[in-house]
């Protein structure tokens, strides 16, 4: 690491360490609670953004309908949950519904305009407008909430923080499992190898006899499905209503901008930074919590224009 880079990290880390020491000294419960809340929010952001970054990494298209896939997953999951009474089935349904719509988008739209980045992005913007309005039409403006099984909905007692919602810890676990799962799939399986090869050089992968279109469809299904799954998981933690799609789209945008486009570990780092910043902002400076997110993005862009773990394209 270069000396200037090292100095930069010290400049960034030192004030943070000092601030957190001050926070611990001032009110340990609040500080730890905020940290845990930030971690769970980061977990949620990671699930949404990992799909987004996976799709971008392979296909170079910014799927601005990602937020809509999140909301579709949430609504379908809610219907299934109401019908069957099973929360796990709802999660599964959210994943599958979003994955199917993702594959449809890939086959009907993106396959027709290969290599036209801007046009693909414009189409996803159009799709997100249409999908958002269709969902508003069908589901109305009401707020929907899930009812998960009792064993994950109570509170858990932790040291110092007396009570913490169990469900948020579950979200954290789900996210870690998904992160590890993605890592295993990407680094340890044949499919993962193909996906990584596609990220590095699409043309070469295709030339070595791999059906790239199938890999594209598979990745898109996985990315979209993760968004749908996050819809149910996140909808249970908070709630679902129209407008959530933009919120999570913005979150995943900022996360992958900070973390680096196309990198799953980058998404994890970005999600951690943004989730923690948002929660700490809300706890300590409620009026300006968004500004914190924004400042992180500016700092990341100013020093690493491609994001923390981003590679040159």
């Amino acid at each position, binding site marked *: 690491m270069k000396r200037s880079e090292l100095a930069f990290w010290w400049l960034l880390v030192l004030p943070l360490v000092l601030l957190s020491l001050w926070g611990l000294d001032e009110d340990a419960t609040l500080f730890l609670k905020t940290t845990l809340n930030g971690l769970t929010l980061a977990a949620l952001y990671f699930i949404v953004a990992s799909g987004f970054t996976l799709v971008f990494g392979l296909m*170079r*298209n*910014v799927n*601005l309908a990602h937020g809509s896939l999140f909301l579709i997953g949430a609504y379908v999951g809610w219907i299934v949950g109401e019908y069957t009474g099973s929360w796990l089935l709802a999660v599964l349904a959210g994943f599958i519904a979003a994955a199917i719509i993702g594959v449809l988008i890939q086959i009907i739209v993106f396959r027709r305009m290969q290599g*036209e*980045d*801007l*046009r693909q*992005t*414009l*189409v996803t*913007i*159009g*799709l997100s*407008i*249409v999908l*958002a*309005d*269709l969902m*508003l*039409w069908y589901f109305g403006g009401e707020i929907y909430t899930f009812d998960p099984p009792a064993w994950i909905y109570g509170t858990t007692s932790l040291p110092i923080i007396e009570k913490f919602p169990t469900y948020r810890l579950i979200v954290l676990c789900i996210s870690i499992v998904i992160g590890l799962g993605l890592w295993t799939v990407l680094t340890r399986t044949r499919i993962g190898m193909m996906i990584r090869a596609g990220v590095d050089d699409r043309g070469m992968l295709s030339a070595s006899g791999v059906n790239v279109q199938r890999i594209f469809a598979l990745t898109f299904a996985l990315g979209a499905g993760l968004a749908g799954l996050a819809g149910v998981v996140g909808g249970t933690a908070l709630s679902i209503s129209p407008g959530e799609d*933009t919120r999570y789209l*913005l979150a995943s*945008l*900022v996360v*992958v*901008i900070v973390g680096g*486009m196309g990198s799953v570990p980058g998404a994890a780092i970005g999600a951690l930074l943004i989730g923690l910043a948002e929660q700490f902002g809300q706890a300590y400076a*409620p*009026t*300006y*919590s*968004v*500004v914190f*997110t*924004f400042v992180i*993005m*500016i700092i990341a*862009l*100013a020093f690493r*224009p*491609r994001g923390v773990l981003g590679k040159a394209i």
Partner: protein
Amino acid sequence: MSAAQWRRAMNTQLPRAQVSVVTQAPDRSATSFPGYIPTQDLFNQNKSWLSRAWSIIRIRHSLVLLGLFIYPLIASPFFTYQIAAQSMALGLIALSLTFLGGYGGMVSLSQMTVAGVSGYLIAIFGTSSMTAISLGWPWWLAVIFSILIAIVFATLVGWLSIRTEGIHTIMITLAIGVAFFYLTQQNYVLFNGFQGFSKIGAPTVGDVDFKDPNAFYFLSVGCALLSYWSVKYLVRAPFGMALQGIRDNPRRMNSLGFNITAHRLAAHAFAGLLASVGGILLIWYNNRISPGSINTGALINILVIAVLGGMKHPIGAFIGAITFVLLQNFAIDLVDRQRFNLVIGSVFLLIVFFSPDGLLGLWQKLRVRWASSGRDERIQGSRRA
């Protein structure tokens, strides 16, 4: 000489020599390079810059001008104010995006945010219903300062976004726009939160009350014409030529000695000027501003307008705006009032699918088809003869 020194030396010396080569080319576009290195401009040495500017004007321009003057005489106030004036204000903001995207290759979604910044500033500096926040400056001072600060803001956004390219730019500008939306919604000290400001009407200058539909129509049409003309002028000036070169091949332009960053920043600043003027007009038109005026939907509407009209030519922004406003006002006769987004989203999708260059591209295609069918007939006719 180190690489950095070399580049700096190239940046300071080469562009003049390079441009002078371009100005000597016997190209029609070269005739409209007024003022730049006049001694070397062999073509138009005798003409003043004004007469050269006049030479751009064609019959169709005068027809449009005439139409714009007659329009308020025959149209009802609803059509002059609600339709025409609103289209001009929205078109101005979309024009800034067309300039950036079409000529600079930087599709920025935060143009509405720049417009929103100037709108908010005019409410803060000038007069509004929130007397606790508004400073009550005279309108001209408020306008000047709002535009200046909005340009600074646009330049900062540009500084951030030009570090990235292509689709990254869209994402970053979208993130900036949405962040500003949340800031205005959460901040009560300066932006008055969810409520925003109201009663920010157009001022009365001398005897003319710009709140009057006709006066406001002429104000917005005047601003739109001036901006349209300045964009047309700028894209043929050396700066605009260099900008288009940078759009097509940044590396090559860099090795030719052009300062890419400076050109892109200047483009953002100029687009900021257009957007802030449009923003002020839009705020005067709406008589109010709130976070809802600059939310994600509003940001994307500007993109929809620009793409709908076509980003290849500055007139596309206004065509798109007129189409958009007409759809907004009359689509509700066909479908439910709530379903406007569905209509505009579908129209947008259709355009992107079938004519990436927007309505202008559609027109171009039709013209080519007519021209070619006419030629075929002529060929057949000559064969028969």
